[in-house]
């Protein structure tokens, strides 16, 4: 059977086409924008095309992180936590702790041996541990840095970033730049702060190996390094597939 999973994130939408719960036939990522209906429809069609599948062959379309009503061709919606657990378990059945570090939210999920989730924790009221934080910091630096995460590994000095409000932390970063602190140290400071926030959310559900990180921030090697230090475990990043797609896979598997 062909199933489609759609994860509508605050920044990006992810679509997965999967066959018999096993084989990924199509995948795509694109900016969500304002018009969710048009965007998901367009992505749905193009991903099916990419997979060589006819719309009529599709058995299930499951959305997550959005109400079903906004995606008219979907026949089911699942809570994000469900999709995260299923997706991560699909990637590695040994996974016990999943950390989804997305653009505006961090979710930590405990997965049992049978793949069902047990505990979960969600960041509340503060964007300090999310991708938006890094985005804002990079923005404050004035120009894009492609390898901002890697730069953190070259940093040598501990500089605390005190402000949790993203907007104020921006000015702290600006302050560091104007006092000529090397960029590597700034990057390190930002990543240490971020790793601290994300880890504390993950610790709320108890860290049990194997630990997997998914979502946009999973691509940030600086973050992974400092999280491993903070949590004192290996933090795995999906290698076969982009970590942003895992939740959409989970959605496709939830029917």
């Amino acid at each position, binding site marked *: 059977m062909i199933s489609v999973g759609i994860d509508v994130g605050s920044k990006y939408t992810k679509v997965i086409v999967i066959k018999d719960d096993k084989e990924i036939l199509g995948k795509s990522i694109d900016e969500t924008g304002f*018009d969710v209906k048009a965007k998901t429809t367009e992505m749905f069609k193009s991903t099916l095309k990419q997979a060589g599948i006819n719309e009529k062959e599709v058995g299930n379309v499951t959305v997550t992180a959005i109400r079903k009503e906004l995606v008219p061709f979907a026949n089911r919606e699942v809570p994000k936590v469900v999709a995260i657990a299923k997706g991560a378990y699909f990637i590695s059945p040994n996974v016990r702790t999943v950390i989804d570090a997305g653009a505006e939210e961090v979710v930590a999920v405990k997965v049992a041996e049978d793949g069902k989730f047990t505990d979960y924790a969600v960041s509340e009221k503060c964007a300090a541990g999310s991708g938006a934080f890094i985005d804002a910091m*990079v923005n404050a630096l004035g120009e894009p840095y492609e390898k901002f995460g890697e730069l953190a590994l070259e940093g040598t000095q501990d500089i605390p970033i005190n402000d949790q*409000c993203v*907007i104020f932390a921006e000015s702290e970063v*600006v302050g560091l730049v104007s006092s000529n602190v090397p960029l590597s140290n700034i990057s390190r400071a930002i990543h240490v702060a971020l790793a601290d926030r994300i880890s504390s959310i993950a610790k709320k559900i108890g860290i049990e190996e194997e630990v997997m990180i998914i979502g946009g921030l999973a691509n*940030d090697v600086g973050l992974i390094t400092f999280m491993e230090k903070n949590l004192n475990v290996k933090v795995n990043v999906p290698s076969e597939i982009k970590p942003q797609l895992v939740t959409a896979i989970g959605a496709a598997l939830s029917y």
Partner: protein
Amino acid sequence: MTEVLKEKKSYADWPGTVWVNESLDWKEAKIVSAGIDVGSVSSKFVIMSDGEIAGYSAFRTQKSSEYSSQYVTNALFDKMDHISLDNIHYIVATGYGRVQVPFSNKAITEIACHARGANYIYGPTIRTILDMGGQDLKIIKCDERGKVLNFVMNDKCAAGCGRAFEVLADLVRIPIEELGPMSLKVEGKVDPVSSTCVLYAKSEVMGLLREGVPKERVLAAYFEAMKNRVIELIKRVDFEPEFVITGGIAKNPGMVKRIEKELGVKVPESKVDPMIAGAVGAAIFAKTLCEKTDKKSS
């Protein structure tokens, strides 16, 4: 994340300004004083000849306060006849970056400068000043000399500040100066977005847009929330209706009209750009200090 960085078109940008008072010749002045206001979002520079505005410039703050201070002064120097730092007798720096201005004689807070500037621009009857800067909201009470009696500021939350509108502009992809007028096109009562946190309000705005709510309405909801936040601060001082708004957002009708309506007052018009009030205050302080200390720096 890196993909995000590539799309760098910004709707938050605004053009800089340089203005020179052609009817004044600074060379004839006894005291040439200057004020420079380096804020977190914008930097402003004012030169005064014997207490009258001879020229000003305003640009977005760049990388560092030091760099911005040089940028904004040079921009005005370029347009003013042969003037340079050497000709200015006293310079007061203010704003968030005030201590990083390498060429100032003294640093004074933007709170004192906005009060003094508003007193100069709008006259000595002014008692309550709202300054909406990039990261700060300040409500200032002052006396007839423009001296601060007390003030309140926003704590650890950038809601209602200039930066919040930049974030919004980028999000809805509408140039920042059009946000206010657009938000006023909606008639009737609009419920504010429930979060005032800049980032959470942002995701709420996104949610509303995705639900198909028209942009004007969404903007109105955002402005309502930011307005409530400002009113909340204003109510914390003994508000007196001799009231003005200074800072960048004084030019944003979406905020000003809403605040006026809520408080039942009308903010007076002025010939001087309210955005430079802080720098004007700084330049006046510079003149006073120059007179009192009798120390012309050149």
